[in-house]
């Protein structure tokens, strides 16, 4: 009963409800503008809300978080520039839909599925938090490492192009992420003895370059062709469309919650994993994947918003952030004198139920704002390319500069922009680079922890892997995904099923 009262706190206080609404609205636009990330907005908000009470501060942050994870999908659909990393997978099918003039339908289905996913995430957070935490606590360093590898390989297998190029891109990302001082031994890595490189390469700069600048440079090829007029005829999707995709969105939400609950991995990986899942389980997509399949929108969007609820599970129960944003929120709670961790749920259950309530209301606001403000938003794409392109470039420069107030980040951004332009021209997928950069640290830390824990003995390492069902499953998945993309798999399949198919 007391839990219910705590859950309803946000609804009984108009001020808190208003803050969640403002946060969600702002979050949608922050998420949509390339270079402005939710992580950045929430970290800035910490300094703004320093003197506030803890409930209003958390309300605003949760609104931004929920709205921002969803908002990235809009620019992904309309411009093929994911406004946030969690929308990388959304661009794969969202942009082809917009090119066909179905931007409204794409945004509508994205909004409803984000709401649905968000809801599933919140329900799971509320019901199964202790259970999931008990499961996640058994994860070993080697499991994190395998999971990171799995994530990177998945993007490679996502691509319709060559897996070799996908692996190259992922490995490049890991290398880029490793640049700088090694956090464990303080050895400079891949710095070419340049002091500038010691602090590493900012991943936001890499992301803006690869996804903002390179796309703009490619768009310049088509400067003469008139802008695609996005006809937004129907935004609210029909009930039959929603019902048809309900099973997939439920599965995707499940993936989202689990990935979100794993420490470190948030909506971006959840979205890519769900996309990969959809690609594999959908026998008859509305259209081929990558060419505007609705399933390709349903899966990542349900998953990335489900991951929001999921990300709070380890944060509230273990004090371990589920992703970057919850990491910042742990900092915010700390400032306000709360100590997130196993004891928070015991000592201060109000906080947990308040957060669940705030998430729930943010989810509802996201649905309302998502289905109403689109016409205004879509005007952006009706601006002629000759005006839009210089503006996006300027936004990218400001965005890259703003992260650290550093000009060198702008150069990195431009450099990766030009590099990404060539990668696109010659068929290298860009997603694995970003995934590699994000997971590099996780991969590195956990590999070293895992190998040190077996005293650098590879035999003992593999014994350890195969003695744990979890590690075994992860390792087998990594190998399977790898093998399924090589000629070996096709040969084996041909031998097994060849007679029947021929």
């Amino acid at each position, binding site marked *: 009963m007391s839990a219910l009262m705590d859950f309803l706190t946000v609804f009984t206080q108009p001020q808190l409800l208003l803050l969640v609404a403002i946060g969600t609205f702002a979050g949608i636009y922050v998420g949509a503008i390339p270079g402005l990330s939710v992580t950045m907005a929430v970290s800035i908000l910490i300094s703004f809300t320093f003197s506030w009470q803890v409930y209003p501060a958390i309300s605003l942050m949760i609104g931004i978080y929920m709205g921002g994870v969803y908002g990235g999908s809009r620019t992904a659909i309309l411009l093929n520039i994911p406004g946030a990393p969690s929308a990388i997978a959304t661009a794969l099918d969202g942009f082809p839909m917009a090119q066909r003039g179905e931007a409204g339908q794409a945004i509508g289905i994205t909004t409803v599925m984000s709401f649905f996913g968000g809801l599933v995430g919140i329900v799971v957070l509320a019901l199964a938090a202790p259970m999931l935490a008990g499961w996640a606590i058994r994860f070993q360093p080697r499991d994190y490492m395998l999971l990171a590898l799995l994530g990177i390989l998945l993007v490679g297998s996502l691509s319709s*192009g*060559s897996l070799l190029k996908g692996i190259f891109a992922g*490995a490049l990302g890991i290398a880029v992420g490793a640049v700088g001082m090694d956090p464990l031994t303080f050895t400079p890595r891949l710095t070419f003895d340049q002091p500038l490189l010691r602090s590493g390469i900012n991943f936001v700069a890499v992301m803006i370059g690869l996804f903002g600048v390179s796309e703009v*440079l*490619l768009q310049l090829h088509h400067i003469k062709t008139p802008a695609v007029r996005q006809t937004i005829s129907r935004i609210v999707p029909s009930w039959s469309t929603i019902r048809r995709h309900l099973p997939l969105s439920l599965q995707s939400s499940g993936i989202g919650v689990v990935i979100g609950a794993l420490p470190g991995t948030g909506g971006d990986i959840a979205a890519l994993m769900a996309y990969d899942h959809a690609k594999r389980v959908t026998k008859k997509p509305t259209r081929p994947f*990558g060419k505007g399949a609705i399933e390709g929108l349903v899966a990542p969007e349900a998953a990335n918003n489900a991951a929001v609820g999921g990300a709070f599970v380890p944060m509230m129960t273990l004090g371990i952030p589920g992703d970057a944003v919850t990491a910042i929120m742990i900092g915010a709670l700390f400032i306000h004198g709360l100590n997130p961790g196993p004891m928070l749920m015991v000592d201060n259950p109000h906080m947990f139920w308040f957060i669940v309530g705030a998430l729930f209301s943010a989810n509802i606001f996201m649905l309302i704002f998502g289905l109403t403000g689109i016409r205004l938003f879509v005007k952006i794409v009706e601006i002629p390319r*000759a005006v839009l392109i*210089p503006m996006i470039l300027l936004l990218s420069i400001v965005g890259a500069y703003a992260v650290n107030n550093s000009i060198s980040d702008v150069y990195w951004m431009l450099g990766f922009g030009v590099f990404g332009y060539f990668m696109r021209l010659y068929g290298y997928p860009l997603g694995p680079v970003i995934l590699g950069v994000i997971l590099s640290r996780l991969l590195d830390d956990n590999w*070293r922890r895992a190998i040190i824990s077996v005293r650098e003995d590879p035999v003992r390492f593999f014994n350890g892997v195969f003695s744990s069902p979890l590690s075994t499953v992860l390792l087998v998945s990594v190998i399977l995904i790898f093998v399924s993309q090589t000629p070996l798999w096709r040969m084996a399949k041909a031998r097994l099923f060849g007679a029947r198919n021929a």
Partner: protein
Amino acid sequence: MNASDDESDRAREGSSDATPGGLPDLRRPGELAFTLFLVVASGILLWQAYDIAGFRRLSSPGAIPMAATGAMLLTALLVLWKTARKPLTTDESLRVAVFPGPVVLMALMLVGYGLLLKPLGFLPTSALFLFIAIKLLSGRSLLFSLGISLLALAVIWLVFRMVFTVLMPAGIFPEAEMVQFFRTLLAGAR
């Protein structure tokens, strides 16, 4: 006819990760040079990664960088081998498919922007950049380009400077003084 040309052109350019562009059976202009660049760059990175800690321990700080750059070199070499054996496309040229005029122009302007940002400051450099880019890309009148670029700059500046308090290099423009002027004005009105 024209539309289908555009379509095929777009398919060669990576619009997304699911469709990363390139051609499976043909080599695009400049592809071999780019692949060679990747091989050389991966080689240099691998050497740098080896330099971190050599082959000392599996848990050394250089282990993952070496594995990553090693994978880069290996895959780049395999891609090079495959690319070199593919025949060159016959329907496109380096000039049009890889370095069309607008792309070269914008790339040069971005370099110019980077060089001018520090000495000139954010507002003048951005105004200049937007104006020249919009004028050259749209081919509209001077007045149109000037108006649009100033309007765009005003919006961007307001959002970043005022809402997100991002401080860009001020340079020669008395930006702080201007903000202070408006603040005093507003305070006076109260």
